[in-house]
């Protein structure tokens, strides 16, 4: 998915140079009209006044952003105080996405490393096994997770039966359930870039470290990890970014108490809140956070490439 980083290949070929504008026309038209223009309209909407029942009035205002950050009392004339409701939701989303990313890294790194050190013949099969679940519908995976984790679900049944617990664990509708759901949704995105990095890693460096009396874990920390860092960062970004704006896992596994950005935005359009400018403003704030992250990431990757 990190396709934006590769600028379309290094082998300069101009066989079809004369037709290039015609060839690009359909993608410009479709993406320009149905992706770029909508994002621009959304930016405008976030500065408009809300109409009851979902519409907008063409009256420019900062009200949506103001509502996000400040509380001006019931009638809007009190002194502005910081409004924590929405900041808390964003903060919780960052925290949840962060924990899901760490969980993915803790399980994903050893997995990627193990797969990359298998004989070349079986590697493709391992990668295939890891990627199959990604191809299964995300909604179905999330529903399956809900089914498994339920209070009377198979996981609790199993744990009760082997006597590990005496009463069912309440996992569903907790933060942990959301983290597990996010982790489950995006784990392959963590494994694949790390796998690619470890596969390119030159193991004679590990041998050299061992010859110089480094222990294996020191070698891992001081030699392997720095060498595969771009892969690790790519994996973390690929898990963190979709987790941040995720809707299904928090909605189906988290319940009302574990509201995240995705549900907040959805409620403005599909739910009862019906405040389109506010939903647009919240989307803008999410989009800005993601773009800043991606820019830092692109910068990091360029630096890694330059030093390599």
């Amino acid at each position, binding site marked *: 998915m990190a396709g934006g980083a590769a600028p379309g290949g290094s082998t300069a070929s101009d066989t*079809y140079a004369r037709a*290039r504008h015609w060839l690009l026309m359909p993608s410009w038209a479709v993406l320009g009209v149905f992706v770029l223009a909508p994002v621009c309209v959304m930016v405008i909407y976030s500065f408009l006044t809300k109409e009851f029942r979902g519409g907008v009035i063409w009256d420019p205002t900062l009200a949506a952003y103001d509502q996000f950050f400040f509380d001006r009392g019931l009638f809007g004339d009190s002194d502005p105080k910081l409004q924590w409701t929405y900041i808390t939701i964003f903060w919780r989303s960052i925290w949840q996405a962060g924990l899901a990313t760490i969980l993915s890294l803790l399980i994903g790194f050893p997995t990627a490393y193990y797969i990359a050190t298998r004989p070349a013949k079986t590697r493709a099969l391992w990668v295939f096994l890891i990627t199959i679940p990604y*191809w299964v519908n995300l909604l179905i995976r999330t*529903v*399956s997770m809900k*089914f498994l984790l339920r209070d009377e679900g198979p996981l609790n049944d199993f744990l009760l039966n082997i006597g590990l617990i005496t009463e069912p664990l309440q996992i569903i509708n907790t933060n942990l359930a959301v983290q597990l759901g996010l982790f489950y949704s995006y784990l392959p995105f963590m494994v694949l870039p790390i796998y690619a990095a470890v596969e390119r890693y030159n193991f004679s460096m590990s041998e050299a470290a061992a010859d110089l009396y480094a222990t294996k874990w020191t070698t891992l920390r001081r030699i392997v990890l720095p060498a595969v860092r771009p892969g690790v960062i790519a994996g973390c970004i690929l898990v963190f970014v979709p987790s941040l704006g995720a809707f299904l896992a928090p909605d189906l596994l988290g319940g009302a108490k574990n509201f995240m950005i995705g549900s907040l935005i959805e409620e403005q*359009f599909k739910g009862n809140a019906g405040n389109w400018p506010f939903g647009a403003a919240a989307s803008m704030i999410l989009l800005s956070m993601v773009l800043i992250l991606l820019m830092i990431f692109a910068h990091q990757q360029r630096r890694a490439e330059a030093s390599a």
Partner: protein
Amino acid sequence: MSAKTDVRTYTGFRFMTILCLVVLYAPLIVVTVYSFNASRSLTVWEGLSLRWYAEVFVGPESAKFKQAALNSFSIALIAATLATAIATAAATAIVRGGKFRLRTPSLGLITLPIMVPEIVLAVATLIFFNSVGFTRGYMTILVAHIAFCIPFAYLPIQARMQGIEDTYEHAAMDLYATRAQAFRRILLPLMMPGIISGFLLAFIVSLDDFIITNFVKGAGVETLPTAIFGSVKQGLKPNIMAISTMLLGFSIVMVTLSYFASKRNNTQ
């Protein structure tokens, strides 16, 4: 080489890999097993039965799910086909079109739908359709799907085309083939594996989509994910397990086929 002296292996990494696979597959296996449960309850196992599968096809909700499946598969087929055609043209221009000023902005535009969080794209598309006065329904879902499928079709196609040297096309043109002939008879067949994986990826992504569809669909038009979501919101029911298992099986068959197709291609 024993594990102790081998610098490559670490104790515990194999265990983590197995744990990883267990976590990835356990929910899917559990749902598959329970979809064959005879009991109405989700908890008690009462023996094997296909009654929930029968319920999906002839039960009270069967008309709704049939329509939703028809919508899902027709949208995925049309969207993936058009997105693949658009992406193939764009990749030809970007990989084989020389250096030009609009190259980087074009590439940015093509990858935009996967840079923007899905929920933000959903909001933007809904607001856009609403402000230009499109009635939400089948067509709005289709158009939105074509747009966000383009990058998923594009990336495998670009990757494949970068791996093909342009000497073959030049050889053909030296032998008096026109550019169009060189493209159609030389480049296109060589690119087929990339085009097929691009199409499959776009197809799956379209079939998979919930958030954008949920925003841009009109009242009464459902795809499988939105219909399933609506059902799940009212409580987990065994017939949902059966539908999920069928979709799961479909995805796994498709990805397995594409795996063996690419394997055969690499060995040739």
